[in-house]
C-alpha cells in the first residue's frame, strides 16, 4: 500500500496544494463561426504523461497547437510554471513539439535536424556537438547521423523527430499523434519506449491521439474531447470504469446502455426502471432524486451468464444469442432481448471453442452486479 504522501507524488492532481505545471485557463479558439476549442480549462502537473483523446476534428490538435504557440487563442490564457505565456510566440516558448508528420527538414541531414534548435539558441559549437551526440545516443540513431530524412524508414524518422524536439531540453514536450504514422507492430514497441524515455528524462509530455488503446497504455491521465470541449479528465482506469457521461462511455471501448428513471434510492444504491422492462439496481456515487432520467452503462465483459432466472428480474435480462464473434482469447456474444434491442457480452474462452456452452439461437439469461456499471445522468 503506498502511503498518502507517496500517492500524492504519483498522482499530484489528487493533492490540492500541488501547483500545476501547465495551466490552460478557459481557452477558446474560433475559426470563423466554428469553435475548435470551446472554453477549455486544464491543469497538467510536472512529470505527467497527459493525453488528449478524441476523434478527428474534436479540437485536440488545435489545443496542442495553442500550447505550442502556433495558434493564438481567441480567448483565455496559458500558464507554464506560473508564467503567462499566451503572448509568447512559438519561437520563444520553453516548449517543443513533435509533429504528426515529423516535419523533418528534407534539405538537412539527421545531425543538422537535431542541431537546428540549438543553433537558434546560439549555443557554442562544442556544446551543440555534445548535445547532438547525446540525443543521437539516447535514441540509438548515431549511425544515421549523416543520412537525409528521405533515406530513413518510418520508425527511424520518428526517432529523429523525437531527438530533435528533445535536444533543447524542453520542460514540456508536445506530441501530435506520435505513433500515428507507424505500423501496428512497431507502434506497440514504441509505446513502451516512449513511456520509459519520459520517465527517465522527467519531462512533462502532452500527447494528442485518436487511438484509445495508445492513450490507455501510455498516459497518467487522459482528457477525452468532443466538439471542442473536454468531456472528462481522469486516469485511464477511471475513464474506462467510471465514465461520467454517455459520450465517454461510448467512446472508450464498447458499452451497453439502458435508459430509465430512478424509482427508489437506498444508501448508495438506486433502483432504476428501464425501457427493457426489468428493473436494475446500481451503485451511484451521487445521491439521485426520484424520477431523474438516467442511463445505465455496463461494459460487455462485466456481464455474465446467469444460472437461474430470478423472480424480481433485477439486473437480469432474458434473450436469444444472435451473433457470436470468436476472437481467440474471448468471444463476443450479441443477445437479442425482450424489447428487440441487442446486448453485447464478452466471455473469456476458458474451454476450447468446440466445447463451449453457448450456441446460436440459444435462450440465455444475462446478469451483472450493482457495482459493475455506472449510472449516468445528463
Amino acid at each position, binding site marked *: 500500500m503506498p502511503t498518502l504522501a507517496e500517492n500524492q507524488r504519483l498522482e499530484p492532481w489528487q493533492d490540492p496544494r500541488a501547483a500545476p505545471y501547465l495551466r490552460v485557463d478557459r481557452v477558446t479558439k474560433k475559426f470563423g463561426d466554428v469553435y475548435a476549442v470551446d472554453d477549455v480549462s486544464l491543469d497538467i502537473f510536472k512529470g505527467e504523461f497527459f493525453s488528449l483523446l478524441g476523434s478527428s476534428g474534436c479540437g485536440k490538435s488545435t489545443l496542442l497547437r495553442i500550447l505550442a*504557440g502556433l495558434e493564438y487563442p481567441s480567448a483565455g490564457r496559458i500558464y507554464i510554471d506560473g508564467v*503567462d*505565456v499566451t503572448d*509568447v*510566440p512559438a519561437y520563444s516558448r520553453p516548449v517543443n513539439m513533435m509533429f504528426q508528420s515529423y516535419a523533418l527538414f528534407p534539405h538537412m541531414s539527421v545531425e543538422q535536424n537535431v542541431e537546428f534548435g540549438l543553433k537558434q539558441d546560439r549555443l557554442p559549437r562544442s556544446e551543440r556537438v555534445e548535445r547532438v551526440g547525446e540525443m543521437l545516443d539516447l535514441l540509438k540513431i548515431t549511425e544515421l547521423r549523416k543520412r537525409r530524412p528521405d533515406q530513413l524508414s518510418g520508425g527511424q524518422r520518428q526517432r529523429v523527430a523525437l531527438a530533435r524536439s528533445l535536444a533543447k531540453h524542453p520542460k514540456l514536450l508536445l506530441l501530435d499523434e506520435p505513433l500515428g504514422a507507424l505500423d501496428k507492430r512497431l507502434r506497440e514497441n514504441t509505446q513502451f519506449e516512449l513511456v520509459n524515455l519520459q520517465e527517465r528524462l522527467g519531462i512533462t509530455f502532452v500527447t494528442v491521439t485518436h487511438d484509445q488503446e495508445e492513450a490507455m497504455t501510455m498516459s497518467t491521465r487522459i482528457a477525452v474531447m468532443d466538439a471542442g470541449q473536454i468531456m472528462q479528465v481522469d486516469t485511464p482506469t477511471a475513464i474506462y470504469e467510471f465514465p461520467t457521461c454517455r459520450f465517454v462511455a461510448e467512446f472508450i471501448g464498447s458499452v451497453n446502455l439502458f435508459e430509465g428513471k430512478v424509482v427508489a434510492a437506498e444508501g448508495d444504491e438506486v433502483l432504476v426502471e428501464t425501457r427493457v422492462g426489468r428493473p436494475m439496481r446500481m451503485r451511484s456515487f451521487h445521491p439521485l432524486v426520484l424520477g431523474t432520467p438516467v442511463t445505465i452503462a455496463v461494459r460487455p465483459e462485466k456481464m455474465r451468464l446467469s444460472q437461474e432466472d430470478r423472480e424480481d428480474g433485477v439486473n437480469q435480462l432474458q434473450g436469444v444469442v444472435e451473433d457470436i464473434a470468436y476472437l481467440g482469447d474471448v468471444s463476443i456474444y450479441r443477445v437479442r432481448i425482450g424489447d428487440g434491442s441487442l446486448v453485447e457480452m464478452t466471455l473469456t474462452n476458458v474451454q476450447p471453442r468446440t466445447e463451449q456452452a453457448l450456441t446460436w439461437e440459444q435462450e440465455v439469461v444475462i446478469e451483472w452486479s450493482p457495482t459493475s456499471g455506472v449510472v449516468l445522468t445528463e
Partner: protein
Amino acid sequence: MALPQPSRPAATQVLSRLVNIGIPYLWLGLFFLLPFVIVLQISLAEPALAQPPYTPLWQWIEDGLLQIQLNLQNFLLVGEDSLYLSAFLNSLQVALISTLLCLLLGYPMAYAIATAPERLRVVLLMLIILPFWTSFLIRVYAWIGILKSNGLLNDFLIWLGLIDSPLTILHTQTAVYIGVVYSYLPFMILPLYANLTRLDHGLLEAAADLGCRPFCGFMRVTLPLSMAGIVAGSMLVFIPVVGEFVIPDLLGGPQSLMVGKLLWTEFFSNKDWPLASALAIVMLALLVIPFVMMQRWQQRMEGGRP
C-alpha cells in the same frame, strides 16, 4: 531559456501582409492597371501632329474653367469602317478555329501522356515544354522556310509526286492556322495534362464495372471531369490569339488581317495613337467574357483540389 517580451504573433502577420501583398499589388496597379486607364483616356482624344501625338483630354481655359473634350470619333470609326469590323471578326474566327484545332490535337496527346507509364511521362511532358522555352519568334520563322512556294513542304510533296506545281500556303489564312496551332499547342496540352493526371482511374473501372463500354466511359466520366482543363487550355489559347501580331504578320497575307496587326500598323505606321487605343479598348471589352470564364473555372479547379 529566458522568455522575451510578449508579442502577439499578429505583428509578424501584419508585416508579412504588407510586404507580400502590398508590393506586388502596388507594382501591378501602377504598371498594369493604371495603363488601361490611360489607354481609355487617350482613346477618347484626337490625333494631333504633336509630341505626344494626341490632343489633351482636358485643359485649363481662362478664368480657371476646366474644359473637357471627349471624342467618340475613334470608336465610331472602329464600329463603322468595314476594315476594322472585318479585322475583329477575322481575329475572333482565327482564335476560335485554332482553339478547336489545338483541342482536337492536344486532347488526345494530353490523354496519351497522362496514361503513359510513369517514367515515359516525364520525358514526354518535358518534350512538350521544351519548345515553349525556345524563341517564339524563331519558331514562327521556321515555318516560313517550310511553307513558302519553293520551300521544304512543297519540295517534299512534289518529290512524293502528290502535286505537280507548288501550293501557295505562305501568306494565306492556312499558314496562320498552322502557325497558331504550332505555337499555342503546349498551352492547351499542359492544363489538360494537369487535369487528366488527377483523374482517378478507379472511376473508369467503376463505370466499366457498371456496364459502361470504354467509349461511354470516356464520354460520361473522363470528358466531364476534364472540363476544367478544357476551359483553361482553350482560354489560354483563345485570348492571346485574338490579339496575336507576330504570326499574322509573318505568315499571314492580305486576307488574314487581324486586329493585333491592325493596332500595330495604326500605331507605328499611321502614328494614330488614339485610334490604336480605341482598338485596344474594344479588344479588351471582347476579351473580358472569356477571361472571366477562365477565372471562374480556374477557381473551380482549385476548389476541387483535396
